[in-house]
């Protein structure tokens, strides 16, 4: 279970989140919605341990992330995979898709042969062929690049996958494919999935339960 408890985040004087709590258990798909600017992406970044909240804690299976430096041990970090809205912004344009997928594995200092084998496995999971893997982001479509980003998110077999509007800019066919790949991964690894979307049809179809960000804040602390 990944849990956010009483999360408050402010950008300057602007308070984006005010005492927000939610949790995602292994095996479930939770949908999160709210109007533009409500703080959905901010909450997702907090859950991904990319942004330290002003107040509140994130805990993973009961272990809270704390400390003055907010240092997240790699063993914890790799339990969370993140898929962002724009693969163009999330992918280094200088890397081939294969190198993009390999990056988290190299960061973990896995042997070269292991990395190569694992990249092939991951590419297979998301349906990327060898001729696509040698290309760099400018030479593939948004949908193909998002598949590579998904393979990268799967690299360390995370227990939790956080998706921030991950299919909004994709066409219906690619959206359905990304959703199918994620659902398949979830079933095989009993992963907890959080999807942020403002498409009600997608929410109804994909999420087991749906949360409105507006309802999550603490009422008058």
């Amino acid at each position, binding site marked *: 279970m990944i849990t956010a408890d009483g999360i408050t985040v402010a950008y300057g004087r602007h308070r984006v989140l005010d005492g927000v709590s939610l949790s995602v258990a292994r095996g479930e798909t939770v949908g999160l919605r709210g109007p*533009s600017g409500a703080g959905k992406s901010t909450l997702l970044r907090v859950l991904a341990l990319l942004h330290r909240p002003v107040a509140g804690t994130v805990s993973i299976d009961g272990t809270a992330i704390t400390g003055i430096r907010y240092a997240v041990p790699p063993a914890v970090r790799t339990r969370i995979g993140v898929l962002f809205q724009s693969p163009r912004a999330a992918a280094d344009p200088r890397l081939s898709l294969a190198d993009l997928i390999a990056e988290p594995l190299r960061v973990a200092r896995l042997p070269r042969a292991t990395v190569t084998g694992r990249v092939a496995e991951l590419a297979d999971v998301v349906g990327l062929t060898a001729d696509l893997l040698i290309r760099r982001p400018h030479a593939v479509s948004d949908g193909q690049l998002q598949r590579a980003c998904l393979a990268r998110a799967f690299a360390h077999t995370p227990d939790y996958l956080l998706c921030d509007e991950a299919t909004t800019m994709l066409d219906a*066919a*690619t959206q359905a494919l990304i959703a199918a790949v994620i659902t398949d991964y979830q079933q095989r690894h009993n992963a907890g999935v959080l999807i942020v979307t403002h498409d009600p049809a997608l929410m109804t*179809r994909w999420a087991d339960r749906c949360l409105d960000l507006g309802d999550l804040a603490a009422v008058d602390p």
Partner: protein
Amino acid sequence: MTTTVRTSALLGISDLTVRFELPDATVDAVTGVSLAVAPGELLAVVGESGCGKSVLAHALLGLLPANATVTGRAVLHGGEAPVDLLGAGEKILARTVRGRRIGLVPQSPATALTPVRTGRHLLAETLRVHGRARGDAEAVAADAGLAPADLDLYPHELSGGMAQRLATALALAPDPPLLLADEPTSGLDRLLVDATLDLLRQRCDNGATVILITHDLAAAQRVADTVAVMYASRIVEHRPAAGFFAGPRHPYAHALLEALPDRAFAPIPGHPPMLTELPAGCAFAPRCPRAADECGSRPGLAPDGPGRVACHRPIGSHP
């Protein structure tokens, strides 16, 4: 492949083809597109990313990079002398067409707005260039759903939705008879999507023509009169929206609709072909459940009821 273009059309595109020359390949970005759009019509051009939709729009405005080769004709009527957009020089396009006769609602408004000018300044500039009173700014902004106070903000202070409405207001300000909207709703939440679409619809109801380029089929269904589906640089189906959403004839169009979350939510197997190496036959055949031997030859876009379809075995004809 030529189609007779009705003289009543505001824009008649015939056999529009765009090629990009790369050092080691040629990209077939748009191939043999023929379309007629009538005054007051809202045409939605839909398809997967990378199928050539945006290139089509940019070709009409003469905004393609230098390595593009454009052939065909695209004649714009409507009040003034007809002009062939593909044959006209940069001077004519810049002085008489862009903004005045064709407005563009860009894909990412945040990058299309000058960051050091307020919305009011941008709008006043556009109005001045087009000979309208700068005092119209607030009225034009209100049409696009922007409050007067929002106009005093700089682009970085605007939310995605507000930036989108400002970009839309800028395109609408000169009151062009034709609007090209290139993914005008990507990244907006559903309320803003609907508001933007309704604004475009309203322009059509007032007699303007809109070509809406989108990957969002729900958006097309909400406002379009006609739908053209592009796949691998070609139009594969073109018909009135009601008939299209009730029962598309091309297997690709059918698969695309079935991928919607409120329908089967089923992905289409395989990848679209690379535009540098399109197959000789039907480009969708490798992914098509209905493919047969005859699909090795490319089907033309043939009349089909009230629309057109490019398929040897359209849905409903070979049960």
